[in-house]
């Protein structure tokens, strides 16, 4: 009896991970509004349980195929199914998404509107369902549904709990991403339709769609639709302006989720859909995308350097870091793509941690200016230490996570695109500049005002929230193999469609 | 008297009466006078129905329009105690409205010219009798017929609800 139950759970583990937060959201929604401890506790229980469950997907098939597959009919007349599955590419992202949510709960003690804690937590759990769903979906339409589902809770998280210009920021975020997803929907419909044309039956399964061969011009159009949606999410150079606004205005938890997971939807989309489904178009678009990505790296770094606002600085650094990922992705070199996959995760960890810390600093004084603090290393040494380590991870200091990804990207890209690799490497230098001057202005020197002299050091809650990220920084930095072993074959499988790569 | 001639004369009389009445409706400043002109128009249209030997329709026209609807109009006019309309300024829109209405006559005539039976063709004089209409309704169009009655019911309830003086807490506004 027990074993039967066990296997039942085992075969539906992805559904469980995807929808347990939704159940949690329902439960939390039914709890009384006033009981903050109960609300937080329930959310924490659900998210931690989900985190534990999500660890099981670490046992993903190391040969690169989809594991934990599930399939059920959904809209059979159009071949749309409820298909879940996970491989080495999605696995770390799923775990990251599940890890980030409990961390976000730790940041809810300083909400702008504490009376609406309940909504915050419900949206958080809804987010989790959406994020996990995107990474697990093996059906194109299901992917789209989850992709869009992530939009709504984040919109409310920003719009309800954000800073002074939250409505503007939330609206901008929503419009940008929605503008991107509509062309994607058209592309998806076109794919489904042309599958029907060529195979005579409807199917929205990504695996089925891979068997279809479109002509190059068709691919170009379809890829264009996908690329727009994903490039906005990443975000790539000219489409990045929503990000600083969203990050600056978002509450700490929103920023963390945005940085850690939401931006990955773009790059994940490219590797999961763009490249395998539309290989010719991906190759044709590679150079323009690389150019934009490199511009993103350098331009984002310069932007970050120019900022006087902590959150904005970190947000701009996101643009630069995600540029790295895009460069690695479109170098079409196996090492570079592995590096890009790892860098996605690294960015999630480092930037997530940065936002956690910056949020913690902000909540102490409700100031974000680089020059509002000073001497943090003396005033709040724990916080400063955490900030410095995270900055080092972010600028790719060897021994910490950032380096492994960056190095693999640059080394791999150099094999196929030497020029872009060298230009990308400039980002390493610029990263050091803006991060270190941030650290110097915030942590070193003398406190710049009387208030800056009296800040609470890192609290136990913050420590607890930061600890897993810190461990991951060192772990991935020193022993990335535990992930690379799983990522590698999956990347090879994804790049199979390109055919010609080494 | 030649029935053909009689019909022709009747047609012209009623047509002129209808047009004159309608002009009166639009041109009169006093709403009560407008309403009286409208009655004349309705009656004239009923006469036109008769020339088409649509006797039942003519009766209905008189009963419903000239009777029920007009009484309703007059009631409302009296109820609202409307006096003469104040001066309506001449605006671009009004001029345009007039021009369009005028142009509309010619447009529709022009359009009708090429369609349907040409002028002078003989016309049957049967349909529109109570028998024909009754047969059509109760054989072919039972459902629309019932719907029409339902519509009237709904309209009646709606009118009552709308016109009922709402229970205002804070007194009349």
């Amino acid at each position, binding site marked *: 009896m027990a074993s039967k139950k066990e296997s039942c759970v085992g075969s539906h583990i992805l559904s469980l991970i995807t929808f347990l937060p939704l159940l949690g959201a329902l439960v939390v929604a039914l709890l009384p509004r006033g009981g903050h401890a109960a609300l937080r506790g329930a959310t924490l229980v659900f998210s931690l349980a989900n985190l534990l469950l999500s660890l099981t997907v670490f046992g993903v098939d190391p040969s690169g195929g989809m594991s934990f597959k599930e399939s059920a009919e959904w809209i059979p007349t159009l071949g749309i199914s409820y298909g879940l599955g996970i491989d080495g590419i999605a696995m770390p992202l799923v775990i990251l998404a599940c890890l980030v949510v409990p961390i976000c709960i730790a940041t809810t003690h300083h909400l702008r509107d504490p009376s609406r804690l309940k909504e915050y937590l419900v949206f958080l759990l809804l987010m989790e369902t959406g994020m996990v769903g995107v990474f697990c979906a093996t059906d194109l339409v299901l992917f789209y549904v989850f992709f869009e589902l992530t939009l709504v809770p984040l919109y409310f998280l920003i719009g309800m709990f954000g800073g002074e210009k939250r409505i503007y920021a939330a609206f*901008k975020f929503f*419009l*940008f991403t929605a503008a991107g997803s509509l062309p994607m929907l058209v592309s998806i419909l076109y794919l489904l339709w042309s599958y029907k044309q060529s195979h005579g039956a409807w199917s929205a399964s990504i695996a089925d769609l891979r068997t279809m061969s479109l002509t190059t011009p068709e691919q170009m159009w379809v890829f264009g639709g996908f690329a727009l949606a994903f490039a906005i999410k990443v975000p790539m150079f*000219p489409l*990045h*302006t929503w990000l600083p606004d969203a990050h600056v205005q978002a509450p700490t938890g929103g920023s963390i989720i945005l940085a850690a997971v939401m931006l990955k939807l773009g790059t994940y989309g490219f590797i999961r859909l763009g490249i395998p489904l539309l290989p010719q178009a991906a190759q044709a678009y590679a150079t323009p995308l690389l150019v934009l990505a490199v511009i993103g790296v350098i*331009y984002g770094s*310069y*932007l970050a*350097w*120019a*900022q006087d606002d902590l959150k904005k600085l970190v947000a701009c650094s996101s643009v630069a870091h995600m540029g790295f990922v895009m460069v690695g992705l479109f170098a079409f070199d196996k*090492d570079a793509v*592995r*590096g890009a996959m790892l860098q996605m995760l690294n960015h999630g960890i480092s930037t997530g941690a940065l936002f956690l810390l910056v949020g913690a600093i902000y909540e102490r004084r409700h100031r974000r200016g680089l020059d509002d603090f*000073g*001497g943090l*290393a003396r005033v709040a040494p724990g916080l400063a230490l955490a900030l410095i380590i995270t900055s080092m991870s972010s600028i790719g*200091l*060897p*021994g910490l996570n950032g380096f*492994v990804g960056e*190095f*693999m990207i*640059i*080394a*791999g890209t*150099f*094999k196929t695109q030497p020029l872009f690799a060298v230009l990308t*490497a*400039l980002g*390493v*230098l610029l990263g*050091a*500049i*803006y991060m*270190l*001057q941030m650290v*110097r202005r915030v*942590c*070193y*020197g*003398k406190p710049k005002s009387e208030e800056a002299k009296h800040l609470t050091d890192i609290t136990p809650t913050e420590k607890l929230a930061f600890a897993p990220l810190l461990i991951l920084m060192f772990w991935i930095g*020193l*022993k*990335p*193999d535990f992930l*690379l*072993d799983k990522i*590698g074959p999956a990347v090879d499988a994804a790049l199979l469609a390109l055919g010609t790569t*080494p | 008297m030649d029935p053909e001639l009689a019909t022709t004369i009747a047609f012209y009389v009623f047509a002129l009466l209808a047009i004159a009445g309608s002009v009166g409706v639009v041109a009169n400043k006093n709403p009560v006078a407008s309403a009286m002109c409208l009655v004349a128009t309705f009656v004239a249209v009923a006469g036109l129905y008769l020339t088409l030997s649509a006797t039942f329709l003519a009766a209905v026209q008189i009963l419903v329009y000239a009777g029920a609807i007009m009484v309703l109009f007059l009631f409302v006019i009296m109820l609202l105690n409307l006096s003469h309309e104040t001066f309506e300024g001449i605006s671009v*829109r009004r001029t*345009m*409205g007039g021009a*369009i209405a005028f142009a*509309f006559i010619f*447009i*529709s005539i022009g*359009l009708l010219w090429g*369609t349907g039976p040409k002028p002078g063709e003989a016309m049957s004089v049967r349909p529109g009798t109570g028998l024909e209409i009754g047969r059509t309704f109760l054989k072919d169009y039972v459902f629309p017929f019932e719907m029409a009655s339902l519509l009237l019911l709904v309209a009646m309830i709606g009118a009552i609800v709308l016109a009922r003086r709402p229970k205002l807490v804070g007194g009349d506004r």
Partner: protein
Amino acid sequence: MEGLIQTIVLAPFVSVALLFLLRRQLPKSAAAVIGCGAVLVPFLCTVAAFFQFDGTPVTATLTQWMTGSVLNVPLAFRLDQLSLTWTLVVTGIGFLIHVYSVGYMHEDPSFVRFFTYLNLFVGSMLCLVLGDSMVLLFLGWEGVGLCSYLLIGFWFDEEENAKAGQKAFVVNRIGDLGFLVAMVLVFKQFGTLNIADVNAMAAAQAATLDPTLVTSIALALFVGCCGKSAQLPLYTWLPDAMAGPTPVSALIHAATMVTAGIYLVARMSIFFAMSPTASTVVAVVGCATALFAATIGLRQRDIKKVLAYSTVSQLGYMFLALGIGAYTAGVFHVITHAFFKALLFLGAGSVIHALHHEQDAMRMGGLKKYLPITHKTFLIGSLALAGIAPFAGFFSKDKILGAALYSHGLPQLLGVFGLITALMTAFYTFRLYALVFHGEERFGHGAHGHADHGAHADAGHGHGAHDHAKPHESPLTMTFPLMVLAVLAVLGGALSLPHFAHFDMLGKFLEPIFAPAYAVLGAPHEHSVAQELGAMLVSLVLAVGGAWYGFSKFSEGPGKQAEHSTKGLPFLLENKWFVDEIYNVLVVGPMRALSHLAGFFDRLVVDGLVNGVAGMVRSAGGWIRMMQNGALHTYALLFILGAAYLAIVLL
């Protein structure tokens, strides 16, 4: 053997973890023991390994690090002659400086933090030296950079110190970029980053390799070396790095980290040997740096700045040696330099400590009688730096100059410049020595902590109440390392005596390392005894002359140099040729401006475009809204027009 290597590398890191986790609980004494022990253990292990070492390199693998489709980087450490040499220097001198730090930093409240950083540094340095792949070397390379950053900004309450640290890190990163490019070039060409494999492959394919590629790799590596070893044009961070505590200056910015560049060139010497262009660049840059830094050293007032510029200058010598193919001489100079420069810095630290953080040599003088041990050891260090026989510096410098002078063409010219530099070195060394230890006592009056100097550290050093008039000798923890280093500075030359003495321990030991390079270059030129003696005589005469002139001129006091000069060459020298200012205007300023431009551009153009589109939609909406004016007649008019249009179209 593997166990020894692993212990060598891991001991400092274990200590770092210990010190960090117990930073609140540990008393200073325990921290000092752990901190020093974490360097002593590797030192002893290295000594043990040295005696076990039979000439064949040993590799100890800890675990796999990175895996890709082709890229495989294990965490493995390789002990061979070169890394053994360096490990001995790093751990040996590192240990002495740790001991010294116990005394020097005794009253600093961040004592434990200091030792944490210092141990982290030693660990990273050992990674750098022992790493068997370029990536691991890079890990150490960046790691020491990080420690340098943290230690320069150790007294971060002063914004200036933090800025100096940041400058060091960023300038080093420019160099690291070169290293990174070199790595990817190597990886693309050879498909591996294992140093031994790469060197072996390069040596085997010497004839077929694309010379452009080899030159690119060598030059890219050298860019990295320029950053780390403070060569032109990236040297500016090193003098600023003197903002850190003096033991740090001794350990990181004189004896060990800055020689990482030399190590890298020596490691990858085959590439430099195969590329005459790159070698020439190395030699010219090294020589130019040596000369340039020496000129600045002539007029510096800050005791640590003089030593800093002399370090830059001596590093230039080393690169000169590597550039002209005298690899062993370069390495030899690294070792002797480590001895006497560490000695000088620690001596300077002792002086600074005694004078309560006064660093201006113009405000010293006559310290001979107060600080007898410091004085004697400092004198030995000065003699060694000046290159006066029979101190260590003489032999190593002479080897370099000899190799340069007796070659042909450009190297010969560089040798002549080297001689001029030697003269200047002797001069400013003894100028400093005279200003500090001789003449009248100029300390103790006037403003304490002159504005020119890093007015750091007072925070932790509760010396304010002491009587300024009577400096006292430093405690034994500080003088003991001085004495040991003094002995080494005297005897260090014995490692590699001139050829005619037939005693070249170092040269023999390192032979297998440089054999491939010499196979390409041809065996090093053997000089006759007369030639060697001639070179020795010339350099000795110059050194003694410079030293005598420097000493005699300043033994009574600074004279006119007490005042800041305002014009002419002295003005330029005192202000370091305004290089920092020029960089600020030419490089930093434009970069910063570019960043602001980017910020401006983003707000105005990119975001402006977005908001512009949004605005257009909004105003279009406004226009359409106008039609929705609520007036019944407008609707009716439109409706009827529409109906008319439909009628016309349909009928």
